[in-house]
């Protein structure tokens, strides 16, 4: 079993940089972007935000700085994982590669400019900034897929397989779906190859739980659109833990989102679903339900800081904690910029 002594020592050092609640309070009390920049200068975000606000002063610059910091922190993780354990980091961060490829093919599909596409990517996965720039410079989607194939990139095959359908229909959906499915399929396959490894199994459990959440949210969104379970089936991601295809179809068939509780009653997500439903009924938005599920997963993940300090628990916990921290900070920055009051901002945040 591969132990992660070195990697976890580095992750613990990164964990120390996570902000305390005191910083949230101070940022919430600040009135101007300049005050915020001053507060951020005392934190790990200081250098990224200072550099970003030079080009783009104000709240927008702060947000850009947060994005840079997140991308840099996650790229650092990939860089310090040993080759033997790299698959763990890549599994966790591969979602950013998917995100970036999607942004690039979308941009190519509508003929967006280089600048427009480059603003929509975040180099936090395997695809580094120079590689992403090369992809953005490609002529069209076919060229993007060719480049990924030449580089031997894992997700080039699903793109190649889906390309003929895109070419004949002119619709992006086949390409996007192929990437989403390929991400989960590849992640689970990589982890299953290390079946006797506790770290791989722990991460696998988390990915499977994430698949369940994706499927639950997809089912709720399809049900609100009155889609038939047969039409919705193509969006079901296999590999989940407690939300099989039968439950997915039952959930899609629901005429009333309140009934989702009955479908999820015998799963570990029942409590999260009840909270989600409560928020949905309060606001009337499906996204309120999603936020409750996100809160559940963030709380589950950050509890892993207390688990075996030499296992992949640290990687999972840090990934979610950092992601959630940047989201919280962005909520404060955006909230302040549009004049939301402190209570509204705090409601949107997930403080663990």
């Amino acid at each position, binding site marked *: 079993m591969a132990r992660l002594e070195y990697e976890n020592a580095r992750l613990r050092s990164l964990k120390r940089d996570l902000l305390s609640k005191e910083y949230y309070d101070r940022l919430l009390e600040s009135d101007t972007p300049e005050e915020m920049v001053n507060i951020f200068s005392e934190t790990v975000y200081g250098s990224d935000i200072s550099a970003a606000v030079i080009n783009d002063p104000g709240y*927008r610059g702060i*947000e850009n700085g947060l*994005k840079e910091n997140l991308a840099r922190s996650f790229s650092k993780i990939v860089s310090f994982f040993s080759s033997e354990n790299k698959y763990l980091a890549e599994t966790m961060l591969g979602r950013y590669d*998917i*995100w970036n490829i*999607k*942004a690039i093919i*979308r*941009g190519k*599909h*509508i003929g*967006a400019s280089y600048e*427009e*596409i480059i*603003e*929509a*990517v*975040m180099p936090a996965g395997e695809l580094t900034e120079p590689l992403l720039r090369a992809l953005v410079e490609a002529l069209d989607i076919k060229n993007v897929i060719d480049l990924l194939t030449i580089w031997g990139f894992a997700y080039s095959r699903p793109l190649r397989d889906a390309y003929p359908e895109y070419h004949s229909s002119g*619709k*992006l*959906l086949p390409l*996007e*779906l192929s*990437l*989403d499915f390929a991400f989960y399929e590849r992640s689970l396959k990589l982890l299953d190859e290390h079946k006797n490894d506790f770290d791989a199994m722990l991460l696998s459990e988390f990915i499977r739980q994430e698949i369940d959440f*994706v499927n639950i*949210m*997809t089912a*709720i*969104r*399809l049900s*609100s*659109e009155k*889609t038939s379970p047969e*039409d919705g089936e193509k*969006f079901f*991601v296999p590999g989940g833990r407690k939300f099989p295809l039968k439950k997915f179809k039952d959930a899609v068939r629901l005429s009333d989102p309140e009934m989702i509780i009955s479908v999820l009653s015998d799963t570990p997500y029942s409590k999260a679903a009840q909270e989600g439903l409560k928020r949905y009924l309060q606001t009337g*938005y*499906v*996204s309120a*339900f*999603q*936020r409750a599920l996100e809160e559940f997963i963030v709380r589950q993940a950050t509890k892993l800081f207390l688990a075996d300090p030499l296992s992949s628990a640290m990687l999972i916990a840090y990934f979610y904690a950092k992601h959630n921290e940047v*989201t919280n900070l*962005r*909520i404060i*920055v*955006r*909230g302040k910029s*549009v004049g*939301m009051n402190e209570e509204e901002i705090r409601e*949107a945040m997930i403080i663990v």
Partner: protein
Amino acid sequence: MEEIHVTRMELLEKKKQIVLAEQGADLLKKKRDALLIEFMSVMDLALQTSEELQRAAREATYAISIARAVDGTVALKAAGLAVEKRPFVEITGSYVMGIPIPEINKVSVRRSVLGREWSMLGVSSRIDETAEKMENEVDIIVEVAGVETKLKRLAAEIQKTRRRVNALDYIVVPRLKEQVKFISQSLEERAREDIFRLKKVKKSLEKRKKERTTKK
């Protein structure tokens, strides 16, 4: 100043013009009233759609702020790149009281969750809701544009009609009446002069006749 011929023919002509101008003014007043009724009904619709637009804009701004805050601008921009569809409007025309009015036949930009180009597995429901609110706002903007164009055309026509009525009521008809009065007075004056002249001639003839009789 218009040259006026002081003749009976001219007087009759001017009187005919007054009748015509008054009839024209009456017709224009009726047209103006009909346009005002149409304008008021379109005005109600314009107020209603404008309120709808304000509400839709508020909801869209709130949704985009939340999506920007939670998912980030990068996620929104990435999702935005998948949107190719532009609002399509077909403009035809219709007539209201003879006025050509452009009719905007919109084709809704609203799409279902499945109708959007992106895969819902990788895009949060917040972004979907933002797209929905924005699409709704675009639809209402097109509707408001149609109603407001109609309103502007009607308002311009009412203004034009009102100016014509006023011109007839306060300038053309009074001027014609002045001219009729002037011609009548001039003709009467001329008639009086003629009578006076005739009397004078008669008196002179009588005087000459009397002198001739006395000489004999």
